[in-house]
């Protein structure tokens, strides 16, 4: 759907202020950045994390008393999808050295290094291999690779500043020192990173970076990484097997309390299977599809936070889940594109964020949380948001500036994906600005782990978006693809070594699930909620009313 007449009228105001803004950009004059103190104030007043009712205490489990989003707490305070007594753990369907839950970036990177360290690997994943948030990342991957102007030292400082200085230092150290190695690894696997003709990697700024170190593969960086890693995993079919449409619904421990496998659910045949493994890696990614506070999301269909639930029930603590990342620029128009991510690179390449009068109101390179809070402020308290025909509100992202600054055709060349997408809807983003609003984007925290990806449970490892600590309270753009590559690779090595050297054979059990159920009861939580969610509920209520013989367990029938 192209812009309506009303919106076209409003675009004229953007066009009116554009020449002067382009001039300022050329002169290097930016909208003033907020001081740390002002940032804090802005977050406190306008960020959704600070809204009344945005956090509830968890009443059971190892992080009892920790206050996080009620949408997640609801799932933590829920029963297992399966009755532990109904499963016969002696009937083992698959046996492997390393079981990886989640076939996204972290899981696939882990599979490769686990295999290189001698392990037989089984990846069990919810949808297809590669249907994951990793596939969707557009903007880029950070790493200090240019020694003449950057170093892991500056990368470290940036990561900390983004994370409100709360990050776990050891994890950040690992992230930034492994970063250049990971980029070299990707180059060696044949990832088509965008380069100058002589081979230097192109790099841009991202929100909160002090040096341009955002490397990228056009505007589909995650897809390029994901499809390359997946192709490489498929080149090792003897050692790396993949089970698609088989999400994990419970971890299995053994009599010593070590992790020893998982229960999988075949979404198509509706069977449950027992997998026995010497080590298990949790790499199930994020939770955008929980639509926290009703926000739209950029995440893939399977991002329902399952790994949090499974790990927590087995006894792993949660951390840094008290903040949720909203990406400042999700599309709000047209309706079909709602929630879709408009990469930060648009701002990096020069596009201004503007209110209804075509005025700037925030520097475009504030960290994501500050940027989002500023958009929300502009649209609420200040009242200068742009109303959409469906009753939403947004701010302009002035993409046509990029063509003026970088030369005609720049938008089409640098952002082919988004250009084509909007073109299909009848909007030429090299000539007309986009309407954006914050959208639920990233799970800043998760399972507690260390820089060897070990959790508190022997034999149980975590990597990627499901884990917490490295990004502190707020992740910077480009550090997550990096996170999944760095810690995915480490998890693979750690798990393979564990399987080889420390694994102890023992009787399989689901006692931790029984204990958890008891704890729920003792806390007075009587509920028919089940978790993990597996898939979000987008069913049509009117259809449901007529499904007289259908039973839904949670969101799934």
């Amino acid at each position, binding site marked *: 759907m192209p812009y309506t007449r009303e919106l076209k009228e409003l675009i004229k105001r953007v066009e009116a202020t554009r020449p002067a803004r382009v001039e300022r950009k050329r002169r290097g004059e930016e909208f003033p950045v907020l001081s740390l103190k002002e940032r804090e104030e802005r977050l406190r007043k306008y960020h959704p994390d600070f809204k009344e009712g945005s956090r509830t205490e968890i009443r059971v489990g190892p992080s009892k008393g920790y206050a996080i989003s009620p949408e997640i707490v609801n799932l933590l305070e829920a029963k297992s999808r399966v009755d532990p007594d109904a499963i016969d753990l002696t009937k083992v369907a698959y046996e492997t050295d390393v079981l990886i839950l989640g076939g996204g970036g972290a899981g696939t990177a882990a599979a490769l290094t686990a295999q290189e360290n001698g392990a037989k690997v089984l990846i069990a994943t919810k949808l297809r291999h590669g249907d994951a948030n990793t596939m969707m990342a557009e903007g880029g991957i950070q790493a200090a690779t240019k*020694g003449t102007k950057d170093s892991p030292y500056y990368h470290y400082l940036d990561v900390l500043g983004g994370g409100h200085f709360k990050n776990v230092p050891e994890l950040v150290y690992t992230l930034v020192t492994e970063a250049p190695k990971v980029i070299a690894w990707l180059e060696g696997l044949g990832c088509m990173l965008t380069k100058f003709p002589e081979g230097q990697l192109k790099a841009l700024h991202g929100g909160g970076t002090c040096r341009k170190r955002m490397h990228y593969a056009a505007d589909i960086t995650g897809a390029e990484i994901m499809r390359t890693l997946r192709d490489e995993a*498929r080149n090792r079919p003897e050692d790396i097997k993949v089970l698609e449409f088989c999400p994990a619904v419970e971890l299995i421990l053994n009599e010593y309390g070590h992790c020893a496998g998982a229960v999988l659910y075949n979404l198509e045949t509706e069977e449950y299977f027992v997998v026995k493994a010497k080590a298990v890696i949790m790499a199930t990614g994020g939770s955008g599809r929980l639509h926290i506070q009703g926000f739209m999301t950029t995440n893939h269909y399977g991002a329902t936070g399952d790994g949090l639930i499974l790990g927590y029930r087995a006894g792993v603590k949660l951390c840094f889940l008290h903040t949720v990342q909203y990406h400042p620029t999700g599309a709000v128009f047209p*309706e079909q594109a709602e929630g879709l991510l408009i990469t930060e690179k648009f701002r990096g390449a020069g596009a201004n964020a503007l209110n209804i009068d075509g005025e700037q109101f925030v520097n475009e390179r504030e960290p994501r949380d500050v940027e989002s809070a500023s958009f929300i402020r502009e649209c609420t308290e200040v009242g200068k948001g742009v109303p959409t025909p469906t009753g939403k509100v947004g701010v302009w992202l002035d993409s046509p500036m990029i063509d003026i600054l970088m030369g005609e055709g720049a938008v089409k060349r640098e952002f082919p994906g988004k250009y084509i997408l909007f073109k299909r809807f009848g909007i030429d983003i090299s000539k007309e600005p986009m309407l954006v609003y914050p959208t639920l984007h990233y799970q800043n925290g998760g399972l507690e782990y260390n820089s060897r990806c070990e959790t508190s449970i022997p034999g149980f490892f975590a990597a990627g978006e499901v884990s917490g600590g490295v990004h502190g309270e707020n992740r910077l753009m480009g550090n997550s693809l990096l996170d999944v590559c760095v810690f995915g690779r480490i998890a693979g090595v750690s798990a393979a070594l564990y399987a080889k050297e420390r694994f102890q054979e023992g009787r399989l059990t689901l006692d931790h699930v029984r204990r958890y159920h008891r704890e729920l009861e003792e806390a007075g939580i009587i509920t028919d909620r089940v978790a993990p969610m597996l898939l979000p509920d987008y069913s049509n209520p009117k259809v449901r009313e007529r499904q007289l013989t259908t039973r839904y367990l949670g969101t799934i029938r």
Partner: protein
Amino acid sequence: MEAEKKEKEDLVPIFIMGKRYEVPSSLTIQKAMEYAGYQLIRGCGCRGGICGACATVYRFPGSYKIEVGLACQTVVQPNMYLTQIPFFPATKSVYDIEKIKPTIETLVKAYPELLRCLQCNTCTKSCPMEIEVMDYIAAAMRGDVARLAELSFDCVMCGLCTARCPAEICQYNIAILGRRLYGKYIAPKAEHLASMVKEVEKGRYEQMLRELMDTDEETLKKLYNEREIEPEQAGEDWTPKDKTYL
């Protein structure tokens, strides 16, 4: 009531696998299927046009033309007859990327059927990403790996081209082989990257990082606030004034 009436007016008929449903005209095919009552398991991944899970073909009554689209990106049109093709069997050659060369021999050895291409252009017409599929296959047949990589870069591996190829070629797997060969062997190496890796391994940044890790929050904040910011419009040759921590 008002709202309901408006909704009624907005409904359009579509035919999912031949069966008629009325759905709001503003929905994508994906959301329309959910509206009709499907709970998607297959045929839905990113919901954002990049994973290739939701390949869909459709036709209109009275038209011979087979149309294609990604269900998550294509808005419904009245009277479309559609089906998703969530899976299509593919050939995938297994190779050791370390041991192959970016040549025509590599491509043909991995996918001998490549040479059977009839240049019928059906693949190009079947591609929802508007990729010149036949041209990249032609580049592969010439051994022009760079062109193959460049032309196929936006491929989401949805499999529609493969489903319709009379020569039974699996275009997208040839394409990713080409891109990996290009990325590894043809694109010039990033020398600054190699030297940075060496410096990290030599431990050049070890001490400064360990010091940072032990620094208290107040000092960290100060260091953070004082960091020199590379200007947005700076060129490749920009260097900071303070080089202590490089």
